[in-house]
Structure formats: structure tokens, C-alpha cells
């Protein structure tokens, strides 16, 4: 019960606290404390120093053990930089936004933790909806028209998507009719246990609905649009939060149902659907990288691309699945760095258009080099982690029964790399005529510290490759019936 309260109640509590205290600094310190606590606990659980016994509707398994640290890590860094961000980022009418900022963050942590730890579809559904509700106002932080539109679209589309996911869940109960599970609760473990008895027709239907419904949150094409709008128009920490942890949480649901589907006859079908989704997302990213002229949108599309890669890997299975699990971690780390640095650039140039930005490397040396390095790392250049995970995924694809997918993927990735690089390097290098470059030092801030630490982490995890992580991922793939 203790760890349960640490992980779930304390965030809720601090949300309430944040509602009552008005001083931003105080709110910040409370939230930071909570996030640190959360991080420590989730790491302890991950390392397995003790097995938490959680109450009804909640439990931990290898999958949630992996996803929980991802969440709390992202959350911790986001909170860490948030305060300085709020100090600097004052637009005309973002005051009230500040008031609820930390409250909503805490609520988000509460909901997201609940979603990850829940072992019941209904609970999961409620919690995920909760995350949507907590994120939507945060998207509207800037209080301008774009933010408003983004929020509306995100809220509306995702709510509908979630509704579809609910239908999927109902189908799942239907599929349980006439089996031992009939009338039982919608607990994952039972379903996984008796999966083979489920009715295939309804199972298929339920998989489709849950996948498509949650796709609106994961950002699998063609349900990606609202996601892109939201990520590109929210303040950078929130964008990092969304592409770092929220999408992953939504992915968790898909993986749950995939895990249930796995022993049944629907397995192949589900894999195909996942592969189609992944390829579609890659294709969408490929198309939009050609015409994107707003660097935050570009990053958003990049996270579409990487979630697509992960989905593809899960769908392919085998080694690709393991690679996908690693990719989840690395991608979330890398996305934080990208969005933070992009946030710095936005703060300096006051525009998201690529045209408006020039010679970043001279004006903001720190952020410039950091965003370049993180771009290199996101495009799978060693020694950063993404390289290794993509290596695994590629090898998995090559030796799956559909090697042609590798060719397609590589082609798309190559062009994504080209266009992203073109856009980014133009920002970094381009020197407008008549513009005097004065080489002045950019102040070294907490945000740079955070990004550097994260990049280090990105290298360290890849190079050291701790056994706990590897074993955990091996366990996950065991749960998914993957023989390595």
C-alpha cells in the first residue's frame, strides 16, 4: 500500500496542494520533490529491490516495470526545467496558464502512473482518458489561437479515439462469452491466461478498435494529425512530455491487447495490422518531411516516425521486438533533448518558422551544438542508443518472413534523414546577408545541463547495456511468446 500511495496518491495529493498554494516557486519545489520520489521508487521497482503489492485493479509486470521508469524519468526532467521555462516564457496572457501548470502536471503524473500500473482494461481506459484531460489544458498554455485550435483538435479527436477504444474493450468482453472468463472482470492476467479460448471474430474486432482508437494518442497514421498539432503548439516541456511518455503509455494498451491476441489464431492478423500502421506512419513522416517548414512540427513528425518504427518492430516480432523495446527508451530520452533545445531556439527567435531562424550555431552555441548532436543521435548515429535499437529492428525485419519491408523502411528513413537534416542545418548554418555574427557566449542554463545529462545517459545505457534492463526486456518478449 505504501508504494501505491507513493506512486499514485502523492501526485494526486500534491495536485491538490498546488491548487491551494499560489506561489509558483513553492509549487515547483513540491512537484520536483514528488517527481524525484516517483523516479526513485519506479527505479527501485524496476531494479526489483522489492516487489510492490498493489491493491485491486493495479499490479506490476515486466512491461509496466519497463514503462514506469520511462514515464517518471521524462516527468522528472520536464519538471526540472519547467520552472526556468515558466520564468522566461511569459507571453501576454500565459499567466493563468502558469497558475494551473504544476497542478495539471501532477494530475498527469497521477493519471499516467495509474494507466501504466493498472491491470484492468476499464481502469486503464479511465486513466488514459484522465491523461488526455490533464494534457489538453497544458497544450493551451500559450493562450493564443494556434494553441487553442491544437487543444480543441487534440481533445476532440483523442476523446473520440478513446471512445473507440472503449468499444474495443466491450468487444473483448464479448469475445469472452461462453468461456471461463464470461462475467469475470477485464483483468489482463486472466485474459492472457485463457486467451486461446476467446472468440476470434470478436477478438479481431476488439483489436482493430483498440488499436485504431489508441492510435489517435500514439500518433499512428492516419490518426496522427491532432497529435502533431498538439505537440508542435504546446510549450516544449509539454511537447517532450507528450512524445516522451504519453504516446508510450497509449502504446502500452495496444501492447496489452497484442499480448492477449498472441496465442490465438488472430496473432498473424494483428501483426499485419501493426506492420501496416507502422509503415503508414513512416510514410506520413516521409511525406511531410518534404514540405514541413516549422521546426517543431518537424520534430513532431519525427516522433510519429519513431513510434511508427516501434510499432513496426512490435509487429515484426522476434529480434525486432526487443529492438522496439529498447527503442521506446532511447526515443523517449532523445525526444526530450530535441524538444528542450528546440524550445531554447524558439525562445530566442520567437518563431517556429524555419525561415525566421538563422545561424543558430553562432548565436546560441550551446543549444545549436546540442540540437545538432541530438539530431545525429535520433538519426541513428553511434554511439547513441538509437543506433543499436535500430540495428536490432533492422536485423529482425531482414530475417523475418517479409524482408522487403526493410528496403521500404530504409528508403523512407533515408529521405526522412535527408529532409530533416536539410531543414535543421539550414537553421543552424544559414547566415542572412548583412547580418553581423557576434560570437557571444550563451549562458549555460539548467536546460543545457539536463540535455547533456540525457545525451550522456543515451550513450551510457547503450554502451554499458545493464543486465537488469536486458533481462527485463527478455522477460517481456517471453510474455509475448517470442523465442530468442
Amino acid at each position, binding site marked *: 500500500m505504501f508504494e501505491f500511495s507513493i506512486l499514485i496518491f502523492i501526485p494526486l495529493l500534491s495536485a491538490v496542494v498546488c491548487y491551494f498554494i499560489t506561489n509558483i516557486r513553492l509549487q515547483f519545489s513540491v512537484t520536483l520533490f514528488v517527481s524525484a520520489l516517483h523516479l526513485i521508487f519506479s527505479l527501485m521497482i524496476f531494479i526489483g529491490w522489492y516487489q510492490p503489492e498493489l491493491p485491486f485493479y493495479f499490479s506490476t509486470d515486466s512491461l509496466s516495470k519497463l514503462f514506469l521508469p520511462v514515464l517518471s524519468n521524462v516527468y522528472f526532467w520536464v519538471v526540472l526545467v519547467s520552472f526556468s521555462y515558466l520564468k522566461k516564457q511569459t507571453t501576454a496572457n500565459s499567466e493563468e496558464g502558469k497558475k494551473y501548470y504544476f497542478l495539471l502536471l501532477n494530475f498527469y503524473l497521477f493519471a499516467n502512473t495509474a494507466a501504466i500500473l493498472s491491470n*484492468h482494461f*476499464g*481502469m486503464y*481506459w*479511465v486513466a488514459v*482518458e*484522465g491523461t*488526455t*484531460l490533464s494534457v*489538453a*489544458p497544458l497544450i*493551451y498554455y500559450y493562450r*493564443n*489561437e*494556434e494553441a*487553442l*485550435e*491544437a*487543444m*480543441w*483538435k487534440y*481533445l*476532440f479527436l483523442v*476523446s*473520440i479515439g478513446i*471512445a473507440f477504444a*472503449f*468499444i474495443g474493450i*466491450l*468487444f473483448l*468482453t*464479448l*469475445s*469472452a*462469452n*461462453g468461456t471461463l472468463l464470461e*462475467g469475470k*472482470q*477485464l483483468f489482463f492476467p486472466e485474459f492472457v491466461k485463457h486467451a486461446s479460448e476467446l*472468440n476470434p*471474430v*470478436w477478438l479481431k474486432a476488439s483489436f482493430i478498435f483498440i488499436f485504431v482508437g489508441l492510435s489517435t494518442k500514439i500518433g499512428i497514421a492516419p490518426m496522427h494529425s491532432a497529435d502533431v*498539432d498538439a505537440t*508542435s*503548439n504546446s510549450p516544449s516541456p509539454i511537447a517532450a512530455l507528450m512524445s516522451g511518455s504519453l504516446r508510450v503509455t497509449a502504446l502500452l494498451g495496444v501492447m496489452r491487447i497484442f499480448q492477449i491476441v498472441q496465442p490465438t489464431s488472430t496473432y498473424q492478423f494483428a501483426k499485419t495490422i501493426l506492420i501496416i500502421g507502422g509503415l503508414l506512419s513512416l510514410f506520413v513522416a516521409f511525406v*511531410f518531411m518534404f*514540405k*514541413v*517548414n*516549422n521546426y517543431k*512540427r518537424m520534430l513532431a513528425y519525427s516522433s510519429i516516425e519513431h513510434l511508427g518504427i516501434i510499432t513496426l518492430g512490435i509487429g515484426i516480432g522476434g529480434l525486432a521486438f526487443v529492438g522496439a523495446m529498447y527503442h521506446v527508451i532511447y526515443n523517449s530520452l532523445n525526444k526530450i533533448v530535441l524538444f528542450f533545445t528546440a524550445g531554447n531556439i524558439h525562445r530566442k527567435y520567437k518563431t517556429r518558422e524555419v525561415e525566421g531562424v538563422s545561424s543558430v550555431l553562432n548565436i546560441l552555441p550551446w543549444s545549436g551544438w546540442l540540437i545538432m548532436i541530438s539530431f545525429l543521435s535520433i538519426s541513428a548515429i553511434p554511439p547513441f542508443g538509437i543506433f543499436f535499437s535500430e540495428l536490432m529492428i533492422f536485423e529482425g525485419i531482414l530475417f523475418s518472413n517479409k524482408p522487403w519491408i526493410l528496403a521500404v523502411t530504409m528508403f523512407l528513413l533515408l529521405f526522412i534523414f535527408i529532409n530533416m537534416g536539410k531543414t535543421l542545418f539550414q537553421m543552424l548554418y544559414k547566415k542572412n546577408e548583412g547580418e553581423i555574427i557576434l560570437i557571444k557566449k550563451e549562458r549555460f542554463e539548467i536546460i543545457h545541463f539536463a540535455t547533456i545529462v540525457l545525451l550522456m545517459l543515451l550513450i551510457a545505457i547503450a554502451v554499458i547495456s545493464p543486465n537488469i534492463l536486458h533481462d527485463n526486456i527478455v522477460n517481456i518478449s517471453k510474455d509475448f511468446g517470442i523465442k530468442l
Partner: protein
Amino acid sequence: MQNVLSILFCLSLFYLSVTSRVKAYVTILRFQGLLLTVLLVFPFIHHFSIFALILPATLFIVKVIVIPRYINKIILDLDIKRVIEPTIQPFTFLLLVIFSMVVVFVASNILSKSADIETIPFASGFTAIVVGIFVIIFRKKLIIHVAGFLVLENGIFLFGTAVASELPMMIELGTLLDIFVVVFLMGIAINKISSTLAGFDVTVLGRLKD
């Protein structure tokens, strides 16, 4: 009894598809809420328990009283025009609804072979979902979109009762709460939109593009 309610539900959907007044939507939402409440209360006539009444009660409060009032309030505050602006003829819309309804009924009839489900509530629930989507797709006003979303939710609820699985009450309540908050947020958003963008239909939301 359940079937009767479902049929009524479907009739409400027909009305929804031909009406051209915003107010009518609110009324329909109320009506559907009422139907769902009755549907929930109905089993308890035999074995009565206060505890079991919590859920229907909340349902009634949320779906029949609070949300419709709230929507009405928004309509009055922003004095949104009384007529909806359909993008296609009501007649075509009706045809579309009928067509999809037929498809859904046939399909669910086929599906009911493989698993025992009461076809009529199931099908009508599903039709409600489809119609909700149609409403969103073919109407311009954001408030109507919200209404469409609610219709969809009602459909899901009906359909949930049809598949004869009792979700734990806590989760049902959570669902209701979520829906309520969503609608609440949407209302705020619509307010903001009408104030900042001077308009309350989707045509004003066209800024974000590549």
C-alpha cells in the same frame, strides 16, 4: 423491454438526422439520457438495493440534467444561431443513416450467431455510434460536434449494456466522470474559440497546416 427502449433510441436518432434546430439536439440528448437511465433502473425492479441505484442516479444527473443544461447555457451565452449548418441535405443524411443502420443490423444479426448478444440493443447502439460520427462529419457547428460526441457516447453505453457484461461500478463512474469533464473542457474551449476566433464552427480552425 430492452428492445423497446432501443427502438425508441433509434427513432431519436432519425429525428436527430432530420432536425435542423440546435435546441432539438439538446432535447434528444436529454431523451436518450432518460432512456439509458430507465434501461439501468429496469433490472432493479425485481431485486431492489439502494447501493445499486448509485449508478443510474449519477447517470441521470450527468446525462439528463447537468450536461444538457450546460450546453444550453453555452448556446445562450454565445447566442449561437438556432439553425445548424449542415454540409449536406437532411434528406441525403437520412438516407445515409438508414443505409448504415440497415448495414449494422444485418451485420450484427450475422455476428450474433457467433456470440449470444441481444441483436437490437447492440445494433441500435452501434448505429448511434455511426450516426454520432456522421453528425460530427457533416455538421459545422462545434457545439453540434459536442452533441454528436455525446450521442456516440450514449450509443456506446447502450451497446455496453447490450453485451451483457457488468463493468465494475467504480469504472462506470469513472467513465461518466471522464465524459463529463471532457464536455466541460469542450465547453470552455468553445467559449474561448468564440471569444478569440470570433466564431463557433470548424471553419475558423484552419491555422495549423504544413
